[in-house]
């Protein structure tokens, strides 16, 4: 009787099992093949990259280097992108405790390679867990184009090991696939940002910090004029020098783009009781407000941002000019002069009427458009033809 049950139930399953298995296998393989892969950024020629590994001890002890199997995985990821690793000895980076210090040590130790990669690891035991041993592999990957963009990816990989004798090295090897994947994404971001002409995607900012220049930091008291920090409506003395002094701090926040309030020649007197420190009452977009800095200061700011891989956004006020701007008397035909906006749902009013009494520029006038374009181009970096 018993074999009957087996033949009825077991026989049915067994006879169909191989066919089912084959179908599922093919489906699985096809499914895997159909998944689109993210394109890898591959450099046109083999390019060296200085690589340093440092494994910080969980507790007491000295830093060590990473296991060879992890290095092999990372080398494969680099090779996919036509990067040739040049490993720096542990001694180069073991003295430093911070990523920035270690990167600086790498730059100093190797002045030739155009790219740098620092792999920092720290492995900690979590717990015995249902017959397994759980570890956590903390990893920070920092990649840099020399004198250019720096990208960083800190993350933790949970690892479950089967045996007690498998310790930190085994955990790092087990995490190597994850680490390699993250490194690939990081490198693709770095290479696409630095090795190719800017595209809409690569020029897209990450995190933007808006700087109200007058209120940010006073870095040069010589240009303060009548600044009075005790008066909320007055200028407080903030300037571009102050901003340059704080760029490291902004970068540490993850900021990669700085947007400045208008820094151009402007009305500086109060108007109807309101202060002018915000800069939106511009007089001339082609010249700078001396309270904020000179053209040399702007050049210095640009360079400081570029070395950090950061971007600059200037706020050009193209809708209107400041009250009593000299251009109103010089070119009265450049303005609509239709009075203030009364209906904020009327598109025509919004485009051609004065916003809060600010003289509205007639951009449809070719002279106005040319003037605004010229002023805008004045602040753009010259591009190769």
């Amino acid at each position, binding site marked *: 009787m*018993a074999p009957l*049950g087996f033949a009825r139930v077991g026989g049915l399953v067994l006879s169909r099992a191989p066919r089912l298995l084959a179908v599922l296998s093919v489906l*699985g393989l096809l499914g895997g093949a159909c998944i689109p892969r993210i394109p890898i950024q591959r450099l046109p020629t083999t390019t060296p990259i200085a690589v340093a590994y440092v494994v910080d001890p969980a507790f007491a002890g000295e830093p060590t280097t990473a296991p060879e199997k992890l290095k092999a995985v990372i080398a494969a990821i680099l090779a996919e992108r036509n990067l040739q690793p040049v490993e720096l000895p542990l001694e180069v980076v073991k003295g430093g405790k911070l990523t920035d210090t270690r990167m600086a040590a790498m730059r100093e130790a190797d002045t030739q390679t155009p790219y740098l990669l620092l792999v920092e690891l720290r492995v900690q035991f979590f717990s015995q867990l249902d017959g397994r041993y759980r570890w956590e592999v903390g990893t920070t990957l920092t990649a840099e184009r020399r004198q250019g963009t720096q990208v960083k990816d*800190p993350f933790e990989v949970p690892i479950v090991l089967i045996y007690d004798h498998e310790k930190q090295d085994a955990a790092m090897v087990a995490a190597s696939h994850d680490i390699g994947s993250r490194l690939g994404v990081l490198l693709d971001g770095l290479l696409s940002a630095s090795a190719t002409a800017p595209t809409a995607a690569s020029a897209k900012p990450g995190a933007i910090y808006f700087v109200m220049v007058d209120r940010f930091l006073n870095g040069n008291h010589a240009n303060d004029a009548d600044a009075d920090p005790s008066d909320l409506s007055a200028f407080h003395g903030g300037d571009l020098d102050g901003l340059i002094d704080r760029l490291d701090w902004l970068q540490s926040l993850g900021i990669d783009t700085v947007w400045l309030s208008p820094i151009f020649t402007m009305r500086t007197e109060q108007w109807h009781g309101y202060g002018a420190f915000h800069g939106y009452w511009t007089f001339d977009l082609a010249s700078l407000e001396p309270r904020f800095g000179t053209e040399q200061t702007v050049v210095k700011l640009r360079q400081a941002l570029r070395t950090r891989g950061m971007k600059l956004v200037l706020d050009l006020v193209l809708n209107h000019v400041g009250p009593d701007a000299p251009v109103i008397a010089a070119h009265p035909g450049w303005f609509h002069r239709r009075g203030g906006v009364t209906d904020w749902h009327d598109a025509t009013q919004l485009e051609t009427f004065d916003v809060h009494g600010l003289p509205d520029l007639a951009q449809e006038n070719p002279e106005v458009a040319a003037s605004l374009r010229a002023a805008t181009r004045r602040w753009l970096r010259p591009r190769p033809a």
Partner: protein
Amino acid sequence: MRRSSLTVFIAWLGVLCATSALAQAPDSRFSAGGYYRIMARPDFQGGDGRLGYGNLYGRLMNEGPYAALEMKLDLLQAPPGTTEIWASLHARIEGGTVFSADSSNGSLANFRVSQLYARAGNILAPNVVWQLGTQQYFFGDLGLYDIRPAQLFDDTIGLSARYLAEKFDLLLTIGDAGFAARGLQYVPLLTAGAAIRARFGGHFELGGGAQVSVEPFIDGNRNSSYVTPTVRYEEYVRREVLQRYLEDFPLGFNQFPLPRPSADTSASYRAVGYLGFGGFGPVRWDNFFIRYQRLHPQNFYTDTDANSGRSVQIYVADLTRDRYALLMGNELQLKLIPDRLDAVWSVLYSQNRDYANSIKASEDNRIAMSTVLRLQLYFTRSLHLLFETSIAQEQSLNGNLYRSNFDAIFSSSQGVADARGLEYGDMKTRNTVQLKTGLVLNPTGFGIYARPSIRLLYGFQHSTQHAAFGNAFVQQLDQFDAFRPRSTISWHHLVSLESEGWF
């Protein structure tokens, strides 16, 4: 006083912030890990979705759903490369039910806080980890069985110090195992022990340890080691002590003998050994574990007179003092063809003896042995074929424990039925064979133990016992079965869609 407390608190916060800022590789202050398994196993044969009775046949398809979550909070993080004090707090919650996956439907009553302990290091001595709270420690795991023979202090709450060196670890533990052993009948079980694990060149490990629990007699404590005099063993196992007494002394309930202190000290012990080797040839690793233990004597149970409804406590320390258990197992993990075929082979042997019991068939007097072989063939990095088979034999050392057919209730030992339960069937031996096979999807790649995995499995069991799987039909000899099948059920078939993983 208040100001000084505030100062200490602020200093503490300062230390926390300062230390966390130093580490360049991220080191989360709070982290969580865990384990889960969940499955759909429609069982048309009246079972509960598990292929057999237990893990003796391999854990695969013999376990139900399970979930565990362990949390760790670093109270104090030590900067890398320093000997500053560090401390962490661990808590684990786990249980074996999930809504709609088993009959308990995910009831939180089935979950428990199984682990809670604080760890600290670099206090008093470097490289010593202090642990206060639960103390579970194991040398390793028989993964195919989900059994950890060489486990110590899983019943102990206390304090331990673990010295960690490159070549060896040393663990010393002291605590109390009373609640784990006795529960509501709690009595202190002073427990102490040690374990050592030595490593030789990365290819060999040797370990061993022991724990001893001693129950101090506390006069007047009803949970201490008392014994009820004149109790005969058979009356105890039949739970008929009071009934027999009242048959002899119909009006003597109030004269039922009072318990007296046991003449012997109640103590129990456990010794474990471990040998591990591997890392050469196809042998990834081999674990051998052995455990020998003397179980702690039980305390009392309540016997009730069916006529009057009055009850007494029957103290049984002297009747449960001679219970021993031996368990040993070996698990060998092989890489037969790298990245193509792996194997794990396990064997398990256990012997339980209760020397006071020579009359009742039970798992307290039983030999069980089993072997499990699992092969995993890798079609691709993440699509695998699993094949597992197990052979097991269980032998009762005290008469018939198993039933060969659905009406074995009427054909017990020598044809004499014992409906009062000293025997459980008509066979001394149960032989079980299982086979499981199916597809495995492992997102993390190669490895028999790589997780998480998603599995579509078919498995069958053949047992010499009738309906040898968990169900509500034939658990007891004296149970009336109104739905008796037309024949003996030797086979059990299951299809399982399941997932398992550590995280």
